[in-house]
């Protein structure tokens, strides 16, 4: 088989796999265009018989979409900054040394991630409320979400720092760099793709986070899109098509950005950095 044919074959397989994997995503788009009852049609309608395009204009006008998206953006950015800002350094140190102390820290970091947010939110709410943090709701949400994402980020970045050859760093120290200098000038740039992937994953998590934001942000005007979406759910009545349209509106741009960025980060930077 010639390389060209092999490439084409691989491409075909890749597209087939992606098509299967993306089916639920497709179902989200299709459902958003269906009427309330044709969602439950037998056999399933793979293409909506009468697409209800006005659902999109409806949610945009009715649901304060821009405001919700802005709040999601603020929270996701805050979470990423706090998590990466505090987590990257710790990950670096945890990769650098090997001792019982380091093991103990690593162990603690993992342990602190164990409980689902739905079980952590009560003590966090009570604690935040007693120190007055609830007066700054988005900050409160950022702090709580960052505590959830940080162990994840530290473990990931630690793995990234392990791929940085120690000799390079030692050489930098010999050349007169301080420890801080070696960290910022050598280790950080060389581990950046791992860190960036971690940061991107954290950003996505912050963007879609529900439990903490729902509880800590009482003011509707400050709530993110993940909560705005649930306004279409009433006790007995659920506007599935609006929910799907809402989800599609906020997932699509994020996914697009992600597809572009991950390509840069995973393949592009690696080869550049290590060669």
């Amino acid at each position, binding site marked *: 088989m010639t390389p060209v044919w092999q490439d084409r074959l*691989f491409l075909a397989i*890749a597209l087939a*796999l992606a098509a299967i994997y993306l*089916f*639920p995503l497709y*179902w989200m788009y299709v*459902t958003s265009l269906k009427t309330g009852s044709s969602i439950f049609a037998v056999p*399933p309608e793979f293409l909506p018989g009468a697409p209800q395009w006005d659902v999109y204009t409806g949610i945009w006008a009715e649901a304060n979409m821009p405001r919700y998206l802005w709040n999601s953006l603020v929270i996701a950015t805050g979470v990423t900054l706090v998590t990466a800002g*505090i*987590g990257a*350094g*710790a990950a670096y140190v*945890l990769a*650098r040394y090997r001792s019982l102390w380091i093991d103990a*820290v*690593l162990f603690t970091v*993992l*342990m602190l*991630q*164990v*409980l*689902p947010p*739905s*079980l*952590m939110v009560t*003590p*966090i709410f009570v604690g935040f409320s007693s120190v007055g943090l609830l007066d700054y709701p988005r900050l409160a949400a950022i*702090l*709580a979400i960052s*505590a*959830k994402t940080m162990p*994840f980020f*530290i473990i990931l970045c630690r*793995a990234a720092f*392990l791929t940085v050859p*120690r000799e390079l760093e030692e050489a930098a120290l010999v050349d007169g760099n301080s*420890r*801080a200098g070696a*960290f910022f000038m050598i280790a950080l740039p060389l581990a950046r*793709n791992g860190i960036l992937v971690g940061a991107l994953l954290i950003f*996505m998590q912050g*963007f*879609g986070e*529900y439990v903490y934001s729902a509880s800590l942000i009482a003011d509707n005007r400050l709530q993110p899109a*993940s909560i705005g*979406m649930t306004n279409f759910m009433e006790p007995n009545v659920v506007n599935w098509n609006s*929910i*799907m349209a809402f*989800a599609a509106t906020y*997932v699509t741009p*994020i*996914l697009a950005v*992600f*597809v572009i960025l991950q*390509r840069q*980060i*995973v*393949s592009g930077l*690696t080869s550049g950095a*290590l060669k």
Partner: protein
Amino acid sequence: MRRVLNTLRDGVGFDTLLVIVALTYLLLFAGLPLIYNVVISFQHVDIFSLGTLFHPSAGWENYTAIFTDPLARTVLVNTIVFTLASVALQFTLGFAVALFFDRQFPGAAWIRGLFLAGWVMPGLVVGVLWNWLLSGDFGVINYVLEALGIIDDPIFWRSDVDYSLFSVILANIWYGMPFNMILLSVGLAAIPDDLYEAAELDGANVWQRFWTITLPMMRATIGAVLALGIIFTLQQFDLFAAITSGGPAGSSTVAQYWSWQLSFREFDFGRGAVISVLMIVVVLAVALIYVRSTRAETRL
């Protein structure tokens, strides 16, 4: 003072500072809530006294109540099955897809990005979509299986006690696979090409290269991915709420869902906390194994 500043910039002080900042943050925002959970597992918590730390002591009463609950056994087995099956399949599929896209054929990087859809979609929406896809009557999965002639009669994935847990596992694999895939992709990309080239010159075949280069070089990443995968799976909640509500008859209830049910559906926070404590014990084991595994890491 100067010495302190110096060590902070250029010595162990710098490293210690980095760790202490992160650790303090975590202990404050994740450690304290965790301790609160442990404390109330030994208390009678009235739903209206949630705001305080001191409640009448319950001794081991909450624990006995949980252990003697007829649901306990099912939940234990379900939790183990759910976690192991989810993690094993998420990891295997994620690794396979990562290896496949590592071939770097034209378009590979773009298409790989599309697999991240699962990570981006809100849990509520993923849950509802799978609820419909797995529906016995109007579900697409049954429709396809019947069209392909694999099954004759519809399977009621969500409502058959033999399949209900499996239906959540299926959705969870879909949900967690991208996370495994992207992290393993980064790990794969970090392996220097010349290692493979050298091995190829030595006459090693694909399998040998995978076992002697890929796996050992990926050790740190694999350890991290597996440990995080287990913890993420233990936190999965949305899918249970949306697909089966833990039913029918508790057949798909797992620890985290049961704990939430006890706390927020029956307002028995003490017993809900007992399950969190038991989960902490499990993660303790996972964390220990992970930390042990880091000793065998290879460094460049």
